């Protein structure tokens, strides 16, 4: 279990805006993903835990050991922190063979165990054929497995992964996720994984922490976070479509309805407990929850909005339709095939799909 509460300020310079990191979180079993855009402070958190960067204040606790405590002036050197770190570029020593890389990492283990551990890792991570080669002579996947093996060989209490999938093509990514799942089940070491890729987050995360400009803005399982983004910023980070600013024009708890006034049209939603008439809110409607219809001779039902189709793009699982007014809908292929000849378009917002952030 890792408990982190750190703050670190970087004053604004002539060429850089200032940046302040201020986070508090804990992570136990499984994979915890630090998710955020570039520059949100994700890697800075890993570096603070590993001891490469000294926070200005706070406290870092790994199991029952204090790694860093500003108030008590404790700041363990990286050597004594027992965190395995998988670097973005793997950082395998280029002048050593893969086996030597593992041996270097095993030197801190008891003398009698070293040899066995190195061989065990070579076997577990399928490096047998290439153990005698140097990093530049092996494939990307082998480098990747070796760097994970090297990080694990000293039996760390925590595994830190800095965007391990960055720059990998799809097959290598799939392989990486398989290796990481193997690590999760065989080594049972808690892991912190940094990424800005939502798919990776869903692939690996037991819990995700959403970071924005140095702060954690939401925590939860990826599915829960995606279903209920805590605010418009999180929704944007998650790439959510159909974000609209609206004013609450009517509330009826009896019939469980609300009236929402958007810039160009009005929608009816479900009742919004805790909100008042006249409040400004952000609405979010998942692209695949929208219904799309052909024009109906000018008859427009409740929650239907006429819209101009601007762009159609193919996605792996669906077809994405972008309409005027910032409306985006995703249809299954078969459904799109039925509708693609529509002359006019109506978009329907099912009341239960309208979320208020």
């Amino acid at each position, binding site marked *: 279990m890792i408990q982190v509460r750190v703050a670190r300020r970087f004053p604004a310079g002539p060429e850089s805006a200032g940046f302040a990191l201020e986070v508090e979180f804990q992570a136990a079993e499984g994979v915890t993903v630090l998710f955020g855009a570039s520059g949100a402070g994700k890697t800075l958190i890993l570096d603070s835990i*590993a*001891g*490469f960067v000294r926070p200005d204040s706070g406290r870092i606790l790994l199991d029952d050991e204090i790694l860093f405590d500003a108030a008590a002036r404790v700041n363990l*050197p*990286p*050597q*004594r*922190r027992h*965190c*395995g*770190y998988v*670097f*973005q*570029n793997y*950082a*395998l*020593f*280029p*002048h050593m063979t893969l086996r030597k890389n593992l041996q*270097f*990492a095993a*030197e*801190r283990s008891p003398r009698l165990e070293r040899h066995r551990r190195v061989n065990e890792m070579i076997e577990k991570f399928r490096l047998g054929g290439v153990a005698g080669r140097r990093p530049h002579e092996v494939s990307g996947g082998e480098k990747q497995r070796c760097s994970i093996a*090297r*990080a694990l060989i*000293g039996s760390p209490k925590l595994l830190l992964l800095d965007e391990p999938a960055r720059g990998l093509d799809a097959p290598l990514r799939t392989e990486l996720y398989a290796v990481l799942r193997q690590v999760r089940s065989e080594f049972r070491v808690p892991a912190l994984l940094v990424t800005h890729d939502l798919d990776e987050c869903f692939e690996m995360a037991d819990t995700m922490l959403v970071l924005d400009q140095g702060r954690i803005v939401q925590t939860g399982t990826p599915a829960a976070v995606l279903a209920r983004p805590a605010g418009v910023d999180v929704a944007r980070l998650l790439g959510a479509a159909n974000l609209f600013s609206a004013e609450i024009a009517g509330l009826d708890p009896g019939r469980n309805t609300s009236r929402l006034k958007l810039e160009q049209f009005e929608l009816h939603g479900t009742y919004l407990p805790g909100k008042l008439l006249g409040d400004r809110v952000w609405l979010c409607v998942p692209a695949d929850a929208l219904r799309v219809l052909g024009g109906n001779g000018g008859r427009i039902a409740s929650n239907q909005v006429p819209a101009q189709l601007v762009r159609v793009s193919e996605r792996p699982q669906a077809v994405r339709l972008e309409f005027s007014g910032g409306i985006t809908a995703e249809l299954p292929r078969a459904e799109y095939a039925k509708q693609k000849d529509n002359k006019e378009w109506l978009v329907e917002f099912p009341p239960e799909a309208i979320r208020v952030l």
Partner: protein
Amino acid sequence: MSIDWFPLWLSLRVAGLATALSLLLGLAMAYLLANREFRGKELLDAAATLPLVLPPTVLGYYLLVVIGRESVLGRIYEWAVGAPLVFTWQAAVLAALFHATPLLVKSARAALESVDRSYERAARNLGASEWTVFWRVTLPLARRSISAAAVLAFARALGDFGVTIMIAGNIPGRTQTVAVAIFDAVESGNGAVARALVLVVSATAVAVLYLANRLERRQAGA
């Protein structure tokens, strides 16, 4: 006509020894400058660079003051070794050392700083001590640039004139290095000797530069 080759051999020996010593001293200083934050760091950097910009005679004068027979260091040396340091071939080594080290510190610092930090971080993360990190990760990764710097330091040590003549003097057969011998030959109208020594030294310099460039290039390619 017979040419006395002693100055050349003496110079090679002096330069070799000075290079070895300047590697030790230069690497230690480069390590401090590249890795540590301490008060007076910029001052140390300036002091290490000073010999590059001072006229060699000025540097020689300072050294003469510091290690002369009347100085504290000079007395300690004389007490320990039994003979004075000034005007011996050991003084020529010291001269070459002061002449060559600044260049080495500069390039070694650049070489150490050019090693990707993530390798050093990885080594620390794996529990390696700072000593291990330096000897087994940083230095091997920087070794080509550092060898190139050492080769250049050797060339500079070989060519020192001003500092050498100030503290080692011009004693034929004892402290007369090749640079001093050339000056001496020209002064005494001995053109043939001067020409022969000049050619040999020039050839050595070209060879050394070629070697240094090759080392550097292979580092970049590796």
